[in-house]
């Protein structure tokens, strides 16, 4: 019977399905394709079933399907605990729920799933671009509630109603957002997925990469308090890779070591980094960070910033860096041994070249210069799409292909150094950054990822050498993307083609930066800051609690007042007011209405007065009596009362 009712009024089912499908769309690029496909299949099936007779699975079939789905999710994620796995499971379970969505309760469950998917989407990503989508999803769910609650409520009216209601709710949402006391720390954590995040990895194997990904995604933004560092100093330090096995540079297990003692000099740069989420634990800072910006983040022995967990949410921190530095202590022998190690029997021609150059040079410093000269004059080409290298890949690069990008040249240069017993290691990170004049910060993109070399020179310590800068000096100034436009994706190239578009993008990026810093990172400390700006000195959690209560009560009072508006302006009261005004005006002519007198008795009593008073008073009082005590005529009553009130207002006696 329910199914019959549904065929005549399928609106509730449509909207419930839409609320679920909207939630599904928020995750479409995060869950495995088969999850989306299965859910969409069930949605379509259900919509068809609302119109035609389609076989429906029984209880046993549904139970089996549920088990199958759970196992499939387990097989894919190896857990049900976790944002990605939980989302996939929720989507599939809700889609299965569609199979039995014949009752009102089942449709409400679908809307609940839509809201839960919205929550999961918020936990997953909080970018400015997605916020309108989330708002739309909330609207959709609320509309579905309205349609389900009253069958046959037209969709457009339900949309308007839900929209109006959400608009009323918006001020409260903003107030609570500002003043609801946030907690520091977590009660529990759910493992986060790593889908779709880019970033620097802990290892570098240039030979195996045929093509460098030139992602236009933002790695981080840096806002400087004082002047910017000059372009040639814009190296953003990431993982330091001292171990080389012939193919791959890696960090090795050196975290137990004490930090090398370095002395800093030159200007101190204080700046704020807003880091975009990545799948890695690295925090980036201008080379070289002098201290850890956060107690949980380690400044390692090699002056890398290592967080305890991957940066799964936008993160921002204040950092302090110096661009000039000197080692305070000599390199220990065993460290020197490690940092000059090379795999045996590989790259013989390169090793020979290194020994030859070193023999001709007077010092290690001169040798570095000679090696750089070799790269500068050897006909080397900077390319983001180099040929694949053979097994002796450094030999292959230096003597055959002579094309590569930063990873290739850094790797080759470090090998040359080590071959001549000069300690060297590869440092990865970012180089450069695009100035955003709107927001006043530097934007560093994934495409700015870079690799350079640090060489130990006696008296100076680890010294930065960038072989890529020698091969292609423009790389430092213009960045990889501008240098090699053909490496950009078509859409990126289009975006960078016109200055107008670039300006627009910079504005959009500044809005994003504001969003990330002011909205996404809004926390307890910011709340206290807001209170202090409102003039509350030494604000604490109690002040916040009071502010929260006051905000809530104010909003409730305004809401009650607004909602009562209709009742206040209800016709009977308007009528009573107009009558009171009429009586006041008549009383001023000398004869007040006695409490026992009704309107008609009063009119009779007024008869002795002046003709003008008598006539107008008599008419108006009779109209009032008719309106007040006469038979109700709902259609014209409101209009009549308004006319009566107007006439009373215009009445001039005397």
């Amino acid at each position, binding site marked *: 019977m329910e199914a019959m009712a549904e065929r005549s009024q399928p609106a509730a089912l449509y909207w419930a399905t839409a609320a679920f499908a909207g939630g599904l769309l928020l995750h479409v690029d995060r869950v495995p394709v088969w999850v989306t496909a299965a859910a969409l299949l069930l949605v379509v099936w259900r919509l068809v079933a609302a119109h035609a007779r389609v076989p429906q699975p029984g209880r046993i079939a549904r139970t089996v399907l549920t088990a199958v789905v759970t196992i499939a999710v387990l097989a894919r994620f190896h857990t049900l605990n976790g944002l990605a796995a939980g989302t996939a499971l929720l989507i599939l379970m809700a889609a299965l729920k569609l199979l039995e969505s014949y009752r009102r*309760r089942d449709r*409400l469950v679908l809307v*609940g799933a839509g*809201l*839960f998917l*919205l*929550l999961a989407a*918020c*936990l997953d990503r*909080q970018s400015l671009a997605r*916020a309108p989508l*989330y708002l739309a999803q*909330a609207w959709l769910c*609320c509309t579905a*509630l*309205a349609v*389900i*609650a*009253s069958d046959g*409520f037209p969709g457009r009216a339900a949309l308007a*109603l*839900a929209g109006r*209601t*959400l608009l*009323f*709710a*918006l*001020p*409260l*949402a903003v107030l*609570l*957002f500002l003043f*609801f006391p*946030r*907690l*520091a720390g*977590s*009660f*529990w954590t759910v493992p986060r997925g790593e889908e779709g995040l880019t970033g620097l990895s802990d290892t570098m194997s240039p030979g195996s990469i045929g093509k460098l990904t030139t992602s236009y995604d933002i790695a981080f933004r840096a806002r400087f308090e004082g002047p910017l560092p000059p372009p040639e100093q814009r190296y953003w330090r990431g993982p330091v890779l001292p171990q080389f096995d012939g193919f791959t540079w890696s960090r090795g297990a050196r975290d137990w070591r004490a930090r090398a003692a370095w002395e800093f000099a030159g200007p101190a740069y204080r700046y704020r980094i807003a880091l975009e989420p990545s799948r890695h634990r690295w925090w980036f800072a201008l080379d070289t960070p002098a201290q850890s910006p956060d107690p949980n983040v380690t400044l390692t022995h090699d002056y890398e910033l290592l967080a305890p967990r991957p940066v799964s*949410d936008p993160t921002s921190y204040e950092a302090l860096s110096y661009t000039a530095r000197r080692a305070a202590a000599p390199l220990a022998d065993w460290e020197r041994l490690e940092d000059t190690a090379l795999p045996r029997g590989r790259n013989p021609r390169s090793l020979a070249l290194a020994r030859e150059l070193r023999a001709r040079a007077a010092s290690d410093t001169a040798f570095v210069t000679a090696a750089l000269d070799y790269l500068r004059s050897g006909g080397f080409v900077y390319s983001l799409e180099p040929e694949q290298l053979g097994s002796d890949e450094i030999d292959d690069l230096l003597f055959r292909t002579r094309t590569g990008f930063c990873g290739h040249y850094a790797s080759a240069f470090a090998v040359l150094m080590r071959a001549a017993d000069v300690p060297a290691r590869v440092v990865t990170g970012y180089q450069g950054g695009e100035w955003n004049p709107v927001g006043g910060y530097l934007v560093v993109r994934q495409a700015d990822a870079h690799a350079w070399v640090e060489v130990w020179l006696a008296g100076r310590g680890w010294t930065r050498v960038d072989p890529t800068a020698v091969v292609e000096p423009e790389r430092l100034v213009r960045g990889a993307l501008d240098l090699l436009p053909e490496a950009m994706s078509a859409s990126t190239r289009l975006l960078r083609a016109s200055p107008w578009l670039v300006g627009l993008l910079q504005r959009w990026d500044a809005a994003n930066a504001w969003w990330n810093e002011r*909205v*996404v*990172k*809004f*926390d307890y400390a910011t709340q206290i800051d807001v209170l202090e700006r409102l003039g509350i000195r030494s604000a604490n959690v109690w002040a916040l609690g009071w502010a929260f209560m006051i905000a809530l009560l104010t*909003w*409730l009072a305004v*809401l*009650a007042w607004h*909602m009562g508006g*209709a*009742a206040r302006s*209800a*016709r*009977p009261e308007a009528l009573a007011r107009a009558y009171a005004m009429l009586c006041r005006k008549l009383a001023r002519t000398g004869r007040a209405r006695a409490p026992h007198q009704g309107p008609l008795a009063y009119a009779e009593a007024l008869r002795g007065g002046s003709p003008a008073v008598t006539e107008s008073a008599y008419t108006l009082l009779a109209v009032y009596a008719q309106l007040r005590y006469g038979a*109700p005529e*709902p*259609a014209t*009553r*409101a209009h009549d009362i308004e006319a009566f009130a107007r006439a009373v207002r215009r009445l001039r006696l005397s």
Partner: protein
Amino acid sequence: MRVPFAAAARARMAAWVRRRQGADVLPVTLARRRLYILPTRAGLAFGGLWLLMLLAGLNYGNSLALFFTFLLAGFALVAMHQCHRNLLGTTLVSVSAPPMFARRAGALVLTLENRSPEARPGVAASLDDGPLIGADLAPHGRAVLTLPLAAARRGLVRIDRLRLTSTHPFGLFRTWTWVHLTVEVLVYPHPAGRLPRPTTSGTQLGERPHGSAGADEWLGLRPFRDGDSPRQVAWKAYARGAPLLVKEYSPAGSDLCLFDFARLRIPDIEARLSQLARWVVDAEAGGERYGLTLPGAALAPNRGPEHRHHCLAALALHGSDG
């Protein structure tokens, strides 16, 4: 299954509400202090979901999740106000209950009026245990709600209170009020029984009025309707100042039935009353004249809806003190 304790609690609650509000007099305009509001089951589920969202948002310090949690909190609060306002100020103009037969569907007819310039969709009414019957009230509009009534036994059914309620607009809250109006519904006996109708000609009973034999039998006067022959109009009565009346006759030789409670040989009184009710209903449907004799009451032969009602009411109230 309703345990006795719950039933007792309900009765106490009902008594308390009644003491608190007092008896109502029509028309009843629903005032603020008599409207009650609580979340529905969907509302409770929404609240649970909301709490989860809040915990998750706080736990992760996730600003966007918290924002949407707060937005939904505001949404629910506004929805509560809207729900309350949907019923506030609605006027119950009239309540009527036409007589009904036992074990057949009856109805309690309510008229609601919306005196505000805003629509009130989804206003519903119900009896204590009855189904909800809803209607949409247009701005300055009226709606008639017909609540189904069922009575197992004949007699007078007393309705002490009815409920006006609404879950508009989002079904998260239910606002309701009790209206304490005493409505008595007359329940005729269930017409049943297969005994043939005792038919006697009028002459046998000697009730034939004076007049020529074979002529039509004089039934009485009824108001004039368009199309009536002027010859049938009771001009004498009109001359005395009465309204236009028409003399009515039944065709000559039409049946005259007299149903006597005492003559029926059915041991069970209720069954006997049911049989009598059957005959009354059938006789009226057949256009016959019929009379009814009950212990302590006798209704002279007549016909017409009013007579039928008198007969059935007498049957309904047989044995009661009323």
